């Protein structure tokens, strides 16, 4: 039986728009069914490690399933590299277990503290999107518990509509219980990394356009504070896993050795306004200067290359009690001017952005609400300040007019009418959702806010 839940205030990673719900730990399908049987009229949604920035894993007045207790590995096939896991297992755990065996997660976000269920529900992407696509493309199948209590095994080859509604569907089609994931074979736990500094946005985009296909992994950090000629100056890091014979002799002994220890934690006492234009400008200047102008084949560990912020526990607290939002959008190739205009507006607004990350996406997938689509994606953290709502609404219009869209896993404030224009397959998603959940049992604050 499920333990009885407790009423709690929940937020996402951005620590904004808290609402109250009953959080119920579940460890398997029987627990989930018990919640569905006795559920409140306000519905149910599954929650993993709560790294969605906004309200995707909140359900005001209703039930929220804490899935992190369902984290077992059910089957491993070392020959094919496929693992069958419960949805509550984290990518962190998968790496700890399988990197020593020569298997890496197929796709990782900028944090490894996401669950497999969450990775599918948000259809997360990583630095390898231009080569490997997003997470759902590495799922052979998943078991989905539906509103009526039945379990449906769905995948790209079986019940494809329901699979592609669930991949990127933010938990609104049912509860993902288990999945079979194709891992990526690696010979070492080290990456060979090339770093390039680019003086402005144009040089960055042309470097990416010309040479991105040569690298498995690629991402650029952009200085959003720099203006004028230096606008868009960046540090581009790209790499691939090293083969064993590419390691220095001392590392060849134990090439798959992996450790992910968290080093420091941010206390919950950051005053609001600690981050302002001056401190961020100073930080950005340091970061840019510290990066080598050009460096080749530097060995880096998995955490250093993929998850630098995971080394700083609870870094979201740095933005103070009012929280922050992340604005991540994509525009198609050929719409670079729209991206430049968006960057300029953010830069001119004086809203300090600690991080701005740019990446070149490859092809999208059939996921109805899946975010990645061919083009450029830019992600910015912005602390909550007066006037931000209007600024971001304006950026949304710019993005949608350019044929672009925002990322639901990061969103906490997009206008519902603009969201509809960003996702032309929303109606197809609604059709599938109505078929499998006619009474709307699965719902969330996100679903209510955007009338999904």
């Amino acid at each position, binding site marked *: 039986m499920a333990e009885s839940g407790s009423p709690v*205030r929940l937020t996402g990673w*951005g620590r*904004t*728009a*808290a*609402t*109250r*719900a009953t959080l119920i730990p579940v460890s398997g399908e029987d627990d989930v069914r018990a919640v569905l049987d006795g559920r409140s009229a*306000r519905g149910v949604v599954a929650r993993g490690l709560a790294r969605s920035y*906004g*309200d995707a894993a909140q*359900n*005001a*007045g*209703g039930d929220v399933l804490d899935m992190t207790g369902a984290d077992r590995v059910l089957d491993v096939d070392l020959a094919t590299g496929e693992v069958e896991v419960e949805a509550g297992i984290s990518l962190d755990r998968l790496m700890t277990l399988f990197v020593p065996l020569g298997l890496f997660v197929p796709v990782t976000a900028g944090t490894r503290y996401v669950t497999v269920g969450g990775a599918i529900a948000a259809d997360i992407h990583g630095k390898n999107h231009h080569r490997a696509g997003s997470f759902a493309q590495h799922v052979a199948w998943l078991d989905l518990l539906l509103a009526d209590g039945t379990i449906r095994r769905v995948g790209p080859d079986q019940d494809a509509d329901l699979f592609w509604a669930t991949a990127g569907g933010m938990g609104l089609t049912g509860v993902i219980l288990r999945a079979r994931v194709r891992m990526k074979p690696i010979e070492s736990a080290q990456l060979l990394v090339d770093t390039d500094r680019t003086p402005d946005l144009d040089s960055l985009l042309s470097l990416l356009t010309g040479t991105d296909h040569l690298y498995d992994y690629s991402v650029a950090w952009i200085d959003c504070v720099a203006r004028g000629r230096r606008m868009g100056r960046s540090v581009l890091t790209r790499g691939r896993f090293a083969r064993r014979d590419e390691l220095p002799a001392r590392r060849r002994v134990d090439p798959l050795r992996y450790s992910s220890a968290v080093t420091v934690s941010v206390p919950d006492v950051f005053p609001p306004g600690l981050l302002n234009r001056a401190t961020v400008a100073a930080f950005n200047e340091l970061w840019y200067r510290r990066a080598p102008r050009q460096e080749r084949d530097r060995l880096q560990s998995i955490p250093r290359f993929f998850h630098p912020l995971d080394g700083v526990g609870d870094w979201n607290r740095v933005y103070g009690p009012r*929280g922050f*939002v992340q604005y991540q959008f994509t525009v198609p190739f050929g719409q670079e001017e729209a991206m430049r205009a968006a960057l300029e507006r953010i830069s001119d607004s004086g809203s300090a952005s600690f991080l701005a990350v740019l990446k070149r996406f490859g092809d999208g997938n059939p996921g109805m609400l899946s975010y990645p689509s061919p083009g450029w994606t830019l992600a910015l953290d912005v602390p*909550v300040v*007066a006037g*931000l*709502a*209007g600024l*971001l*609404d304006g950026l949304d219009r710019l993005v949608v007019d350019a044929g672009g869209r925002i990322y639901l896993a990061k969103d*906490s*404030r997009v*206008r*519902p*009418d603009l969201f509809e224009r960003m996702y032309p397959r929303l109606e197809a998603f609604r059709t599938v959702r109505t078929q499998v959940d006619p009474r709307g049992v699965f719902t969330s*604050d996100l679903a*209510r*806010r955007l009338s999904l």
Partner: protein
Amino acid sequence: MIDALGSVGSLLLVGGTSDIAVATAHRYLAERPLRVVVAARDTPRRGEVAADLTAAGADVQVVDFDADDPESPARMVAEAAAGGDIDVAVVAFGQLGDADRLRTDSEAVAQIGHVNYVAPAVVGTELANRMREQGHGVIVALSSVAGERVRASNFVYGSTKAGMDAFYSGLADSLAGTGVSVLVVRPGFVKSKMTAHLPDVPLSTTPEAVADAIVTGVRRGGTRCGCPAPCAGS
């Protein structure tokens, strides 16, 4: 849902024809389209307000509300909530009364006591019940500086506002941790249809300024604000 930046998806105006309620809706509509429920007596003015807000981009729903009818608040809140969650409810009805008559006419005192204290308290209770179930929401109560320090010139009105203010301040405390919050707004003298017959006074404010203070107050998430300058939330 109120989003991360304080933008609102649905607004309930109780006393929906009041100048401050209408100005608040316009202030939100200047940012985004949203659902607005106008709860008021069935008067021509209600129809005008509904048409005006529709023209401004609102998805308007009209609901009957009569402060004199004891059964009206529960029915009004249920009808408003049937169309979806209520993100922000503005309790904006009330009467100034005739100060001279209120000095001697006990029936008039009973009547203004009902409209300015009893009915808002009943509405507040119904709204709080509904929002507790929702797990989120903000109740904005229009109090008055007249209730902060009751003056002899209109002490009956002031006393009703003092009671109403105390009710909503207490309600705010009782809702701690429920996801629901209360914003008590205490404007000074507002130039509006309620005060149109009175002479101008210095330091008066406008419905638009009060609406600004309400929107800012909801964004900041405090419990109390004066007007026109919102004070820090408590």
